[in-house]
């Protein structure tokens, strides 16, 4: 069963002026959630805003589920003022999550902004399962240094890691997809048998770019959409993806609707339609 209820915030970590993490106590979510899944969070008593807000699971430890949040609007602004001991209304975990890679293949993780937490969770999970850090390449970008979700955590993993900021206030200046594209071309001409597996997560424009770069390769992308419910009943998050043979729809043939909250948020890059 999925969880729906009031939970306690057991910890808060302020990472920068804009980024922070909240630990919440939920054995039910903790026991189920996998990398790429998300939870929906609502602040009790904030009645003028109806929808919960989706945040990827960043980490699980015992009964504690951690999410990392960027302050960027109404609800995230208020969440920044939430403290240990406060309560939140939470539902989840939702979505399909990432398919874990087969051992031995080289992995490229490309994260933009709030795309970092789920990829970091994925990375930590496979390292724990014995994956070799040498095979893992982690690209993470943000607009500027205060919007970096993690840094020390990233370098301490022992994987190849590249950090970019749009304004050069940290790491390489530019878009995260640039060093990634460069490196991938090199690898591509390499001797990797099964080829690399790429995981991308971030704003639409960025994941679209990743899809272009990875054309023909095995690539999984996690999408962002507005999510009124998160549990598949409103169709507000639905996008068109390429249809299988058996599908027919009134409006168009060859397309099929997929709810990002349910059939996604992770899709095979080859399924996606960009327009």
């Amino acid at each position, binding site marked *: *069963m*999925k969880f*729906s*209820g009031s939970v306690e915030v057991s910890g808060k970590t302020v990472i920068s002026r804009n980024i922070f993490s909240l630990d919440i106590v939920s054995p039910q979510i903790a026991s189920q959630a996998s990398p790429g899944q998300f939870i*929906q969070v*609502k602040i009790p008593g904030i*009645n*003028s*805003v*109806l*929808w*919960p807000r989706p945040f990827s699971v960043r980490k699980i430890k015992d009964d504690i589920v951690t999410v990392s949040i960027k302050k960027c609007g109404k609800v995230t602004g208020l969440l920044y003022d939430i403290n240990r001991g406060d309560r939140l*209304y939470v*539902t989840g975990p939702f979505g399909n999550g990432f398919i874990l890679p087969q051992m031995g293949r080289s992995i490229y993780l490309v994260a933009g902004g709030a795309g970092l937490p789920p990829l970091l969770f994925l990375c930590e999970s496979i390292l724990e399962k014995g994956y070799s850090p040498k095979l893992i390449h982690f690209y993470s970008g943000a607009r500027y240094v205060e919007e970096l979700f993690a840094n020390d955590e990233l370098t301490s993993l022992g994987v190849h890691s590249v950090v970019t900021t749009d304004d050069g206030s940290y790491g390489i200046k530019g878009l995260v997809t640039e060093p990634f594209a460069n490196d991938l071309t090199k690898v591509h001409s390499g001797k990797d048998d099964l080829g690399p597996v790429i995981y991308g997560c971030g704003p639409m424009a960025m994941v679209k770019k990743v899809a272009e770069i990875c054309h023909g390769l095995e690539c999984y992308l996690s999408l962002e*959409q*507005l999510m*009124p*419910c*998160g*549990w*598949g*009943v*409103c*169709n*507000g998050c*639905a*996008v*068109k993806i390429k249809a299988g043979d058996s599908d*027919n*729809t*009134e*409006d*168009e043939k060859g*397309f099929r*609707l997929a709810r990002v909250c*349910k059939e996604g948020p992770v899709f095979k890059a080859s399924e996606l339609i960009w327009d």
Partner: protein
Amino acid sequence: MGLSLQTEIAGLKLKNPILSASGCFGYGEEATEFFDINQLGGMVTKSITPLPRTGHPPPKVVETASGMLNAIGLTNVGLDRFIMEKLPFLQKLSCTVIVNIAGSTVNDYTMLAGKISSLEGVDAIEVNISCPNVDSGGLEFGASPAEAAKVIRAVKKASRVPVIPKLSPNVTDIVAVAKAVEDAGADAVSLINTLVGTAIDIQTTRFKLSNRFGGLSGPAVKPVALAMVYKVASAVKIPVIGVGGISSGDDVVEFLMAGAKAVQIGTACFAEPTVFLRVIDELSTYLKKNNYQNVNDIIGAVKDG
């Protein structure tokens, strides 16, 4: 003495007056990941159209003050896949199952009503008449008493189960529409569907919805829904199902006092999938505290203030 929450709509016994609203509960399966939906009085499916529809392209939802706009555009699996993929699940339910239908012509409606009403496990049909009537120039069926009556008369003939028109609030006189569908044979009415609204993104100078307009729902519209429910319930003899902005047991009590025999909850379940159970609980608490033994005792009980 036990407390009775049981109520009756068009011969259907509901174990309590709390139903899910169309378009906000899929075809019921998703909710089973949270609770046993047989605890509900009943559920209403997403509107079914003759063929599958992908609906409008994103963006199709906007948050507004205490409300939301949706321009989902009747996204649904269509009749055939409904029967193949969704019906088997519904047939296993013990709560009342109402299937909502929508079409662009009277023929669409009668075809759907004929087929769906003969399926085992379908207890009633809710008729969404807030759709553009292609035969009469795109105005909603629900916008005129005569057009509404025409489609309901036809559906009533085709259907083997009770027929419940769902009324649009975007009209000058909803009582006239309600009376017209009552005369046309409707077994009950549900109201309100969403109010037409819009929102503009001032950074891009574009509508926030690909369809320009959407339907407003949520607590913002509750006062409008409640007024319409009261007016209609005072004017017709058939039962009224109230819907619009309900998110608490106290809201339910207001709708019942206004004359609704049952209510539906839509938008509020997005953030809180188990809102139905909380609301049933809060309704029971209210009744006990105020020494009512039967929920029917408060239906239509409102007096002048």
